[in-house]
């Protein structure tokens, strides 16, 4: 009997075949078109308005990028939910799982291979967005601020964290469709609500992934304000005070890294120990 091959080699195999699966599906093409439409749509509107109007609204190239990339967060969530939402549920619901989970491969190895394949695919799609942003800012301002690299790093970390959350839902639910829908709802609605609650109560929403993701655009702010407030409704004690928080870049990175670590570990534990009852 031959000896088993190493986990690292099996990780590579799991990664390559998963990547191949992603790149061949209509889902990948659909997500690419989705991101292309958003990025090119934004650019088209700004081109239509003209250079003067655009630069009047956003005096610096950094301001412009902060505005342009404000929609990136939602795009990343949709991409991650579709790439990660069913990555593990497909096995736990039977079908392909009866083929894959009976192979001599650790489930952790399969998870790692699929996760990295999702990261690579998601990054490729996300880079398209940044490519449009770079071309646009170069066209309107004649320069590309170096902070775009920091933003790109934050966006990559956000993608990693969001995929970890999507993988968690994928290992939690046995139904792939339910898993994708749950990922989108929680990431697109749940976390922003958590952040808004913090803003309303005057408590920094450091617990929200959505809050950490603001780092993608706050790195462009020249006069960074961690906390600001605005009182509405007359004298103090009569109206309401609205608070607004922005994470420090390090803080945003820590929030996203914690989500990444915690949800990836939870995904592993669920995927590793869940039984396939059929």
């Amino acid at each position, binding site marked *: 009997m031959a000896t088993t091959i190493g986990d690292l080699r099996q990780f590579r195999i799991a990664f390559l075949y998963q990547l191949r699966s992603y790149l061949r599906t209509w889902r990948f093409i659909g997500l690419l078109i989705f991101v292309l439409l958003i990025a090119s749509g934004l650019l088209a509107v700004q081109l239509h308005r003209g250079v003067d109007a655009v630069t009047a609204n956003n005096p610096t190239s950094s301001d412009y990028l902060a505005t342009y990339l404000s929609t990136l967060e939602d795009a990343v969530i949709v991409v991650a939910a579709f790439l990660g939402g069913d990555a593990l549920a497909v096995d736990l619901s039977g079908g392909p799982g*009866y083929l894959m989970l009976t*192979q*001599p491969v650790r489930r952790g190895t399969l998870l790692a291979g699929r996760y990295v394949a999702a990261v690579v695919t998601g990054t490729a799609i996300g880079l398209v967005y940044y490519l449009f942003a770079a071309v646009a800012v170069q066209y309107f301002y004649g320069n590309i601020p170096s902070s775009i690299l920091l933003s790109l790093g934050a966006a990559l970390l956000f993608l990693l964290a969001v995929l970890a959350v999507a993988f968690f839902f994928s290992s939690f639910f046995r139904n792939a469709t339910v898993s994708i829908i749950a990922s989108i709802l929680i990431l697109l609605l749940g976390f922003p609500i958590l952040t808004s609650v913090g803003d309303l109560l005057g408590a920094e929403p450091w617990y929200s992934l959505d809050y950490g993701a603001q780092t993608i655009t706050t790195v462009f702010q020249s006069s960074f304000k961690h906390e600001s407030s605005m009182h509405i409704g007359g004298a103090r004690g009569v109206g309401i005070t609205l608070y607004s928080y922005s994470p420090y870049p390090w803080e945003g990175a820590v929030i996203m890294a914690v989500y990444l670590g915690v949800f990836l570990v939870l995904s592993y534990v669920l995927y590793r120990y869940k039984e396939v009852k059929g």
Partner: protein
Amino acid sequence: MPSIAATNLTKRFGKFPALEDATFHYDRGGAIGYLGPNGAGKTTTLKLFTGLLRPTSGTALVNGRDAATDPKGALWDVGSLVETPEPYPALTARETLAMIGEFHGLTSEEIRDRTDRYARELELPPLDRKTAKLSKGQKQRIVIAGILIAEPTVLLLDEPTSGLDPAERVIIRNLLIRLKAQDRLILMSSHLLQEVTEICDQVIFINNGRILMQDTVEHIADRFKVTSLEVEFARPADPGQIAAIAGVTRVQPVSPTRFRLDFDGSEEARTRILESCQKVAPVTSFSSASLTLEDAYMRLMQGGSAR
């Protein structure tokens, strides 16, 4: 030598006992039929051996490795077909087989040679077609080729011909017979007793999560053997007279001149009974029939016992 061993293997879903205290051990090549009605615990047993389920208590060892605590080691030399596995739809049939082969550490040449061989033997569909576009039977043959590509010594098969058309069944049955001859250890559940009789040397009967009996096909048939004789007389005969013949355990009149007599199946008893029948009335013809594995199965499932 390939081996599988269940020791006091128990699986409960809540309070429902899907498998209770199953114990069996096989450590050489051959085919074992795993027989029982729906819900008996057959698939649960195979899932425990493939790490898809974890036992409530007891152990399921494959080649000496525990499927619950060391699934990678236990499944290394195993090909398994549990429930209805499906290949990933975005991959082609060839890629599916290559992926499984690579996971088992096969070289590209080995994968190519074996893929071509099984394409001929199992009459696989075009290998460069995405599996999403294949029929259920075609997918199942791809899955079976995937199970065999690493040439495992242990095969765990859950109704391997289920869902196949008659021609496909013949292909798989012949393949299993050939694999058995190569000293592979095959544990296969099936509803098709004829199939089990043709392929398997040993049989395990299971019902309500409990193993009722395990032995060779011959021994089980022998243990349940109640051979019958059908005797045709030249004229109507008295059933009472026939029942009084030494060795006859039961008489069933088929017609006034034709009777079915149960006896223990021995050669001496048959000779003696036929001689005695001649004294009741002239015998014009007789025929004998033994119980099949199917009869044994039916008796066991109805709560009967061996002789």
